[in-house]
């Protein structure tokens, strides 16, 4: 009638330390797990982590993975990483570098350098590179400020009769023609698009990507908020989207995910009157 292994498990369960795994009883942090692995925790902390590990399968698996990462070259296989996937990660890094770069990530590879170089030569080269970068940055900044002055001047007065285009995925609400054509006066500086998502599903964040036909992505970014009508307003300056055909892709961003859920693809064409 008895299953010895099960009976033994039940007996052990009743004598194991009561660490509790319910929500609210924190798992050791990744730092604590790593420190426990390396024997760097004070005895009382190490005992607490070990008590937790006795019952927590998840944390045990993490600890064993750290051990494998540091001690088993077969962890993850011996095959080289797929080139396409490496490229995908690098694309993400480039995008990150473009947004907020803590360290520059030049698009092209630096030429190979000898492993041993005189320290002074390296420093001089580094200083020259820094000076050149500063010069370029100052020049670019001046041009940008000059351009901004003109733009602010244009935006300092009302944009009379600025059009609003109500877009649904694939085309416009008002007409079935595809793509929707937006004819704008020459002096108009800004116009507004209303993006109606294909799905009513809500996400913690949203972003859009604007792609010019045959010209790549002209802008992408987040910070959109759904309005009371379940749609999104996007004001676009003409300088960003000159005449041409465009596709806007709207994504819902689940928390903690790099990749968003597509919510709609909007095609339109801009022409100057």
């Amino acid at each position: 009638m008895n299953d010895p292994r099960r009976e033994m498990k039940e007996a052990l369960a009743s004598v194991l330390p009561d660490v509790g795994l319910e929500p609210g009883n924190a798992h050791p942090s990744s730092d604590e797990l790593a420190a426990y692995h390396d024997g760097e925790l004070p005895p009382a902390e190490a005992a607490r982590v070990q008590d937790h590990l006795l019952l927590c399968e998840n944390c045990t698996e993490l600890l064993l993975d750290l051990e494998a990462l540091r001690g088993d070259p077969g962890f993850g296989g011996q095959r080289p990483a797929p080139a396409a996937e490496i490229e995908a990660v690098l694309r993400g890094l480039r995008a990150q570098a473009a947004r907020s770069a803590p360290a520059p990530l030049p698009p092209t590879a630096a030429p190979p350098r000898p492993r041993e170089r005189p320290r002074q030569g390296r420093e001089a080269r580094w200083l020259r590179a820094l000076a050149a970068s500063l010069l370029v940055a100052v020049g670019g900044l001046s041009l940008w400020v000059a351009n901004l002055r003109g733009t602010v001047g244009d935006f300092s007065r009302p944009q009379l009769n600025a059009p609003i285009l109500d877009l649904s995925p694939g085309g416009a609400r008002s007409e079935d023609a595809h793509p929707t054509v937006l004819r704008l006066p020459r002096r108009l500086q800004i116009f507004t698009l209303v993006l109606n998502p294909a799905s009513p599903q809500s996400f913690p964040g949203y972003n859009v990507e604007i792609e010019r036909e045959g010209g790549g992505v002209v802008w992408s970014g987040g910070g959109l908020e759904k309005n009371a009508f379940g749609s999104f307003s996007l004001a676009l300056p003409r300088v960003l989207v000159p005449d041409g055909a465009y596709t806007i892709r709207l994504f819902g961003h689940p928390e903690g995910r790099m990749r968003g859920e597509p919510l709609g693809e909007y095609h339109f064409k801009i022409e100057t009157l």
Partner: protein
Amino acid sequence: MNTPTVRSHLADRAAAALEIVAEIQSGSASEESFRRLLGLYYQPVHHFFAKRGFSEEDCLDLTQETFLGIYTGVQAFRGESGFDTWLFRIATNVYRKRWRWGSAEKRTGAQVPLAGSDEAAPGEVIPVSPLPAPAEDALGRERSRILRDEIERLPDQMRRCLALRVYRDLKYREIGVVMKLSTETVKAHLFQARRRLQEALGEYFGDYFGAAFGDHFEVAVRGSTEETDS
């Protein structure tokens, strides 16, 4: 497993990673530097997520997020803990962030349980074990009490090894990692635990402990030094 060649390979990888990190920190890194780093660690990081049951698409996302974490946090890396440990911390944080998000999504009912869940679908019949007869039940309770008392008498470390072996089904080597003991010490603890329980309870339990400890344990008792329970 951890032969000198293996150790050398891992040490080379870690040294190469540190060299790349130093390049990035000094601002002399190029995309090629990151490509080399990805070449060294893409597969282990991807495997870290894949073995946790994420889809291929999610694994790519999470792997990318881990390397983004390296990129954005690289200036703060001081090298005190080694690159592998730092990478582990970032990957674990990425995993836990996703895990919390997944849990939250489950709470809102956005995910459905996987097939094979213990819960029955609506209208499905749930098989129920027949209740034991009262006398049988009392005997069972008595056996459990005796067993529990004897387990409690075992030294703490021995009892913990026993728990990880029987309760958690870990291998000797894995128990060693959790307990911070050598594999040989783990085997010795388990051998002693079984001997003590057999001596104290053999009268009541007969050949109970062979099955309770599992077949793998038999090999260890006979003195094999091989890890047989892979």
